[in-house]
């Protein structure tokens, strides 16, 4: 046919040599996955320290925090945090946690590492793009961290960066000069990283499945990563556009988001014609799918872990898949629930509210299926399992408060109170993190070839589970009492009785944060000194457990696995052990 056009050469899959190509600019999805983890680990550490500073300041606003004046001479002169610097810290806390922890670790970390293996492939579809997507994320983080060290510090506008504050430039006060500009640039770079990653995930899952791995035999983790990638592909594009317009407002004098007649420091700004509401629409159009990007991979991990440690197939595999897809589609219809108090028509509010309530249905189906999987299972309460069960509990807690917020009539009161802070921390800051922990404990043996210490793990779980409930449950109550969010101090009379609750939450936050040291110690010590892990320590069924721990550079050592059955064949009657691996050709089928 096309005789003169050449067949592109097929290169053999050679192992990389040299430190740089093995560990720095690696094309190996496993190395890139670990790099994402390191990035997320750094970000969560900084984010947690910021949360400690926030909680400390709320209780002891006049306290002198040693060292803070070195980081920001203007924001914390004498070590005492100014109100603006408080806002800067919470802006970076939110930005780091949402973008650089929850959007990286579950997808870029676990997904990158395990998607190719679970589908039986050697690597992702586009290894070069994979490497670029990590280093772009790294660049985005570097730009964001740079905002700490510019003269006026990081921006004060929250992770939501609402204009006009975020758009008018340094006239709006500390942090709104270079700090905000760096923030916008960082997020724009991050959009590129996410888009490249999303492309890779989608094509990999569609094109690189090994023989026998039909779509309905994929582990639910793969479905979750796929759905998340689709969400990323469609939503980050809008954030990129919004960020471009915001950047133009800041540096080029445009007025996309700045209305006429704004007065700052007795000066009327020369801008006119823009609409701050437009930013809210664009941002939340991205922002709502973003929070599902944060939780959906976790849901996949939980389904995967629960099934293994209940020794039962996940209840309703097909329903779980369809619910993931339903959640993804619906997530594009609900963004207005972040804008109920923006002055929208009550009819719009009604529509957004209905859609938001509708999204609880597939989420509830998934929760019931998790509970149904647990019911009657032969539970193996490993640490990963404890975190998985903890996820289900916390997802219910966090999800329920969302049902309250979905009603416009209630939200008019609850908007911008601690009720909202409690809600999103429960679902994102706790449930999603529990899913990351569950995945970490579950997959550590495979990634590092050693076992983590179970006693330390269970202690970590118990302290964390109790701790997060102590930190975030009270927020719902003080929010109902009217405690506003993003305030650096509470001077109003009606808030004084709540200060003791704040003190309790702050202490709980420090204790819970300290408990994470147990995890870190366990993690890094086991990496070197833990007992060697067998190929399949959990007796799990998916393909990652059919290769050595840790895997060779091309995952399957040159062979191409063939898949004969679905991913959750546990408790199989007549099987030699109580499970059948996906690539096991035994004639026994579970039905």
């Amino acid at each position: 046919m096309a005789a003169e056009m050449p067949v592109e050469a097929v290169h053999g899959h050679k192992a990389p040599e040299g430190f740089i190509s093995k560990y720095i600019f690696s094309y190996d999805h496993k190395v890139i996955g670990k790099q994402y983890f390191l990035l997320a680990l750094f970000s969560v550490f900084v984010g947690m320290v910021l949360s400690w500073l926030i909680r400390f300041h709320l209780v002891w606003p006049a306290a002198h925090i040693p060292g803070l004046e070195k980081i920001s001479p203007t924001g914390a002169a004498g070590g005492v945090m100014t109100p603006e610097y408080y806002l800067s810290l919470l802006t970076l806390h939110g930005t780091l946690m949402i973008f650089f922890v929850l959007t990286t670790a579950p997808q870029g970390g676990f997904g990158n590492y395990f998607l190719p293996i679970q589908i039986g492939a050697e690597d992702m579809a586009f290894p070069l793009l994979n490497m670029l997507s990590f280093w772009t994320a790294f660049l985005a983080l570097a730009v964001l961290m740079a905002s700490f060290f510019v003269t006026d510090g990081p921006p004060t506008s929250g992770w939501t960066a609402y204009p006009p504050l975020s758009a008018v430039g340094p006239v709006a006060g500390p942090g709104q000069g270079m700090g905000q500009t760096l923030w916008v640039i960082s997020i724009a770079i991050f959009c590129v990283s996410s888009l490249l990653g999303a492309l890779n995930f989608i094509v990999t899952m569609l094109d690189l499945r090994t023989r026998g791995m039909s779509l309905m035999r994929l582990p639910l983790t793969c479905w979750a990563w796929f759905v998340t990638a689709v969400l990323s592909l469609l939503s980050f594009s809008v954030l990129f556009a919004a960020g471009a317009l915001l950047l133009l407002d800041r540096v080029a004098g445009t007025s996309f988001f700045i209305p006429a007649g704004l007065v700052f420091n007795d000066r009327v700004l020369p801008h006119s014609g823009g609409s701050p509401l437009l930013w809210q629409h664009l941002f939340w159009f991205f922002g709502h799918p973003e929070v599902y990007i944060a939780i959906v991979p976790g849901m996949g991990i939980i389904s995967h872990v629960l099934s293994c440690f209940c020794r039962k197939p996940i209840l309703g595999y097909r329903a779980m898949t369809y619910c993931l897809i339903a959640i993804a589609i619906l997530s594009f219809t609900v963004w207005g629930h972040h804008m109920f108090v923006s002055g929208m028509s009550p009819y719009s509010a009604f529509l957004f509210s209905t859609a938001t309530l509708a999204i609880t249905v597939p989420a509830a189906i998934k929760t019931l299926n998790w509970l149904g999987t647990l019911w009657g299972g032969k539970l193996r309460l490993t640490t990963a399992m404890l975190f998985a069960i903890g996820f289900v509990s916390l997802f219910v807690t966090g999800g329920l408060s969302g049902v309250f917020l979905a009603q416009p009539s209630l939200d008019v009161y609850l908007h911008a109170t601690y009720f909202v802070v409690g809600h999103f921390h429960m679902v994102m800051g706790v449930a999603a993190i529990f899913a990351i922990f569950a995945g970490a404990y579950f997959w550590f043996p495979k990634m590092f070839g050693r076992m983590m210490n179970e006693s330390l793990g269970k202690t970590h779980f118990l302290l964390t589970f109790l701790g997060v409930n102590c930190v975030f449950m009270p927020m719902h109550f003080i929010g109902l009492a009217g405690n506003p969010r993003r305030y650096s101090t509470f001077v109003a009379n009606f808030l004084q009785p709540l200060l003791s609750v704040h003190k309790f939450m702050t202490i709980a936050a420090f204790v819970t944060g300290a408990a994470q040291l147990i995890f870190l110690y366990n993690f890094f010590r086991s990496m070197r000194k833990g007992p060697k892990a067998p190929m399949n320590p959990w007796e799990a069924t998916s393909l990652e457990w059919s290769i050595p721990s840790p895997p060779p550079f091309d995952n399957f050592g040159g062979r191409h696995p063939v898949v004969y059955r679905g991913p959750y064949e546990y408790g199989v009657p007549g099987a030699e052990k109580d499970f059948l691996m996906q690539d096991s050709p035994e004639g026994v089928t579970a039905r």
Partner: protein
Amino acid sequence: MASDEAMGATGVGHPHASPHAAERSGSRMEASLYAISSRKLGMWLFLVSDAITFAALLVAYSYLRVASENWPRPFRFSPSIVNATIMTFVLVTSSVTMVLAVRAAKEGRRRGAAGWLLATMLGGVVFAALHLREWLTLIHEGVRLFQNPWGTPLFGAAFFSLTGLHIAHVCAGVIYLGAVAIGAGRGRVSADAVEISGLYWCFVDLVWMFIFPLVYLMSARMG
């Protein structure tokens, strides 16, 4: 189809083989859902996301325009709308030359493919030149990102940002096509790669089909 995939499927020049190798038909991997190469699917997905970015910008522009008073309508039929129409003709024709380049590549005609690719690039360059000339004229008349002599300052902001992003895509496309043309002429890139570049170029044309009416025609000066 299979040989197309064979040609388009694997990458050149990086240490790991692209895993989507030639034997896709059932022996090693599950059959492809779409019967296109992974790279082509990747390009389609990228174009979907880029389409959404442009759409978000167009929606933002429309939103602000609806909410604005005194949006200027400065584009007279001659020279502005005539110029924009000629630009449209040039871009559409360059899409045609692109389609012909893809066909030449699929038929194995190396020089034909390179030639048609060069014609497409030429179309892109002419488009960009006409566009830049128009920009300079507007700038000379006093239009900036933050002001213009006729009406709301948002006009310049919207105009330059929308057409600016588009022309950046055109320029990137010309460079991309240049690389593909060199490769095609030397017989080093596959027909699939040419087709993938064609997808990008036609997408750039497609976006212009929306910018032309929304930005130019809706600001045409009557009478």
